[in-house]
């Protein structure tokens, strides 16, 4: 294979060039634009924005551009409690949900990895299948259950556990239920992948040396599954931070996550510079976990080779 590659034929370059160019134009360039607009001031309700980057003026144009950049949008993020609270709310929801997901997902993944080999593909398939059905539908399914005259209240009333309908919908509880429900496959699959690969003779060795099962689990299984725990946690934590659909459909109106705030700034208030600044700040906030995730991913790919 390397023969042909070393030659770097014209056609080989072409293979790289197409997806590379696509991603540069539709993935990287957009972020540059977001960054630029976040540093602009609204000239009218819609673009154009000030300052304008005048590339034709060369170096002077660039200097003028930098001199005129506005940090107003960022100042607003730092001074208005609305924004600060939504960032904190997002982090809180993402953190608590990730912990709950680990508590539910780990035993599930463990149970699947320890079930008979012949069953495992089916069980994994059953976990993956909901991931293929619409996210929106799965969140909406909970509206049916959690609303005031919904099934959960009907059930609890009939069982005489509660005597009047509780407001499940429009609460933080509903957000947590929705998030945990939607992201469970993202947690179970990476955990299963590491647990399934684990060398069971290590547990036998621990048992032979007199370690009780719970201790072997804690001292052998859990440390060996740390890569899976990290991958699952990151895979859930990062997108939950920017979640929009779940808090909007299931959450209350008094608390907002940052994804909703961005959405409102953009669509309702039409303040594009502030919406862009929110996006940039969220990205900076998530940069650390995203880079950790990337590193794990690259190591896994190199390990697979």
């Amino acid at each position, binding site marked *: 294979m390397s023969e042909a590659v070393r030659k770097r034929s014209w056609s080989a370059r072409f293979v790289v060039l197409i997806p590379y160019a696509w991603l540069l134009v539709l993935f990287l360039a957009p972020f540059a634009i977001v960054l630029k607009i976040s540093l602009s001031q609204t000239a009218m309700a819609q673009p154009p924005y000030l300052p304008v980057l005048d590339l034709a003026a060369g170096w002077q144009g660039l200097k003028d551009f930098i001199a005129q950049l506005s940090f107003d949008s960022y100042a607003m993020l730092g001074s208005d409690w609305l924004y600060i609270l939504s960032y904190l709310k997002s982090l809180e929801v993402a953190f608590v949900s990730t912990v709950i997901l680990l508590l539910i997902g780990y035993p599930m993944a463990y149970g699947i990895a320890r079930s008979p080999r012949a069953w495992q593909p089916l069980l994994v398939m059953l976990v993956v299948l909901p991931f293929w059905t619409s996210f929106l539908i799965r969140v909406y399914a909970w509206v049916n259950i959690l609303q005031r005259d919904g099934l959960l209240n009907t059930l609890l009333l009939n069982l005489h556990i509660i005597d009047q309908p509780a407001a499940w919908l429009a609460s933080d509880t509903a957000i947590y239920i929705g998030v945990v429900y939607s992201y469970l496959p993202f947690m179970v699959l990476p955990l299963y992948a590491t647990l399934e690969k684990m060398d069971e003779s290590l547990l036998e060795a621990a048992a032979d040396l007199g370690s009780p099962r719970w201790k072997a689990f804690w001292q052998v299984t859990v440390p060996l599954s740390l890569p899976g725990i990290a991958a699952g946690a990151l895979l859930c934590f990062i997108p939950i931070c*920017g979640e929009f659909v779940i808090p909007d459909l299931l959450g209350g109106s008094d608390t907002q996550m940052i994804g909703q705030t961005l959405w409102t700034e953009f669509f309702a208030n039409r303040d594009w510079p502030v919406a862009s600044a929110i996006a940039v700040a969220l990205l900076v906030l998530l940069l650390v976990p995203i880079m950790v995730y990337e590193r794990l991913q690259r190591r896994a790919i190199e390990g697979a080779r």
Partner: protein
Amino acid sequence: MRRLSLFNITVVALGLAFLYLPIAILVIYSFNASRLVTIWGGWSLTWYRALLQDEAMLQAAWASLRIAALSATAATLLGTLSAVTLTRFGAFRGRLLFSSMVYAPLVMPEVITGLSLLLLFVALGVDRGFWTVAAAHTTLTMCFVTVIVHSRLVSFDRSLEEAAMDLGCPPLKTFLTVTLPLIAPAIAAGWMLAFSLSLDDLVIASFTTGPGATTLPIRIYSEVRLGVKPEVNAICTLMIAFVAVATIISSLLTKRGAVRRARDTTLGAAV
């Protein structure tokens, strides 16, 4: 070691019940005769009939299907090329940037991707609608295709390719006659995943669409915000059935290997 402990059975059964019960309830209530969503009024197809007359919903569904087919096809082409690049080209200048750009959209919050793409389209002065949503979906889903095809490319026996080359087969022909048939199931799985992701997407479509191109999730979302409606239960059930049938067909086509790959690919690849 591999025995069925009561604990394992209980945990897995409870977990699966949690995953499937809400969907099952939704499906059952879509056949409810009563207009009140939570009161059971007997079995009926009323809401499916109502759906057939809902012109706006049908149009949105048709737009969604076309966008999904187009973007899944483009994403499969681009994603396969990316996967080949990542596995077969070794080190090249800009490789790090390339692999970062390939994997970043997988974890990027959708609101950020959506906003940035919209601002790009505004900056370029493109009219928003069908094509901008399709392009946005292509960018998002090509990353998933790359992961799926990539995991297949690293796992198969490279000596087959080398044998073809040693016998004098040119690289392009080797790829088409040896590599491509071997990775075809992964490419098919990638297309299906891209298709269903595009069909599913609400946030990015909302940002990148314009007047005249409403997708099904956008339409459903605007209905759902006004409260639960039995028609929505019906359309959701149809979408679930569609996905279930597609998944069963694809797993029959690729047999047991598909499950393994679906696992490696969708999410397990993270490890």
